[in-house]
């Protein structure tokens, strides 16, 4: 399967995430859309990793572990995303305790 399909799928997922962040008003849903963006990037990295592996295999130039660092990066993204989730949900819970809502339209105190 050519790389293009993966590329389009990943970009579509990423765009859905971006549109979600820009249009939704619920903090949790915005957060989910951000996670969707990160996972689109994960998919893209894995696809590119496979692509570089195939390219290296085709040219027969000896490269040590072609395409492996893309997959390594995915694990780092997962770990960072998990850390972000724990902090982010804590912030959202803290906000919910104070205003009993997670609607970001309430967040306009700093404008005045």
């Amino acid at each position: 399967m050519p790389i293009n399909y993966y590329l389009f799928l990943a970009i579509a997922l990423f765009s859905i995430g971006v549109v979600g962040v820009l249009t939704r008003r619920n903090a949790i849903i915005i957060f989910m859309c951000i996670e969707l963006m990160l996972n689109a990037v994960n998919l893209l990295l894995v696809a590119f990793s496979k692509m570089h592996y195939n390219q290296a295999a085709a040219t027969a130039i000896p490269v040590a572990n072609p395409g492996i660092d893309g997959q390594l990066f995915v694990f780092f993204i997962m770990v960072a995303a998990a850390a972000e989730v724990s902090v982010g949900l804590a912030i959202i819970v803290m906000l919910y305790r104070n205003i009993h809502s997670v609607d970001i339209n309430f967040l306009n105190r700093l404008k005045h």
Partner: protein
Amino acid sequence: MNALFVSAILGVLLMLSSLFIKDRNYIHALALAGLAVLFAINLAEFDGWLLFEMDLSGMLRFDRYALVMNAIGLASFFFYLLLSGSAMEKVGPHHADYLALLFFICAGLFMVTGFESLLILFLGIEVVSIPLYILTGSDKRNLKSNEAALKYFLLGSFSTGLLLLGIAFFYGARGNFMATVSVDPTVVGSSLQLAAVLLLLFAMSFKVSVAPFHFWTPDVYDGAPTVFTSFMATIVKVALFAAFVRLFEDTFSLQFSLWQPWVAGFVVVTLLIGNLTAVFQQSVKRMLAYSSIAQAGFMLLAVYTINGDSKEGLLLYAASYSLATIGIFAVLVYLQDHTFEGFNGLAKKQPIVAASLVIFSLSLAGIPLTGGFLAKLFMIKAALAYQPWLAIVSVVMAVVSVFYYFRLIQAMYFRKDAQSISIEFPKSFPIGLLVTALIVVLLGIFPEAILGLLYF
């Protein structure tokens, strides 16, 4: 490189210290001692003297520039702790935890200034950002702090998403994450590579709050507890700029013609928005937030003009801007009224504090004999070599900035205090502030003190 590990270890130590040490002053002293050790380790590395060797597999490279940047960051951190460390008690009871988070951020900053692989850049930015989200929201009962934390968190992780997509495209084009120039003709002009350049440019602009990606900055800086705003606006921002310059100079120098016009546009927009909005602010804290955007415009000139002048200018800028802003914020923490009126008549009550504030304001405005002047001079001189009109815009905007910095001086010296609330500073505070101010002046007279470190 040793400093990175030691600072992470110090963070863990401080986190655990609250279990055993009940007196806050001891924890504070421990943090200051730790910073002194970090500084010594960092200085020792200039001569290649290492505590322990480590194989970094080419992922991190601490060249002279990164080491000088780290030294400046550590020195600013030291003065920050000295001046506003005790003010952290006002935020909440978790003094040791705040200090621990600050040391973790410090470890992230070392990663960011010394990265050689985009993996480290990403990890460094995350290690910096996540503790900052927590610190922004550390005033848990305060709705403004909550709101700032949520905004910072959502927009920060959004920009991380952009950064990651950029890195993924970068990987697609090159097959590795190394931040080096690729002369491979299939890479240089490939559309993946060009998309990567633009996405990384936007994401980094987000992180250093360059207009038009600055909209989160005033709200977050205003809502966060003042002590932590001070850290965010100075040490963190400056180190991220070092990463910005390093990324675009080392990695994307062949795509120069693509991103340079964008950066020029960002410089102009940032200078205009930052300076013109700062003029109309009533709150000094918010004014400083916009002023930090305006100063980011000047620092962005170092990304635009990739040459020795602007890189040296960025170092001077880092030192003088960090110290001056930390100084003003340190005073602001102790004032009840954060508007300009809160500073009325300060010169009569606290002459030393007021005199130091004058020096900080002059330095931020770029008046000769202060570090800020030379820093701006370096930047504008570098810009002159590329685009004269950009230098002219910068000079005009520097003149505009004089207006709002001088409002602070005017309030302190020429306005009478309506309600005479006495302001209590800790005993040693004015002296610490004066020393900081003296360093800002000395930077303006002997810039080679810092720049010399680059070469000898």
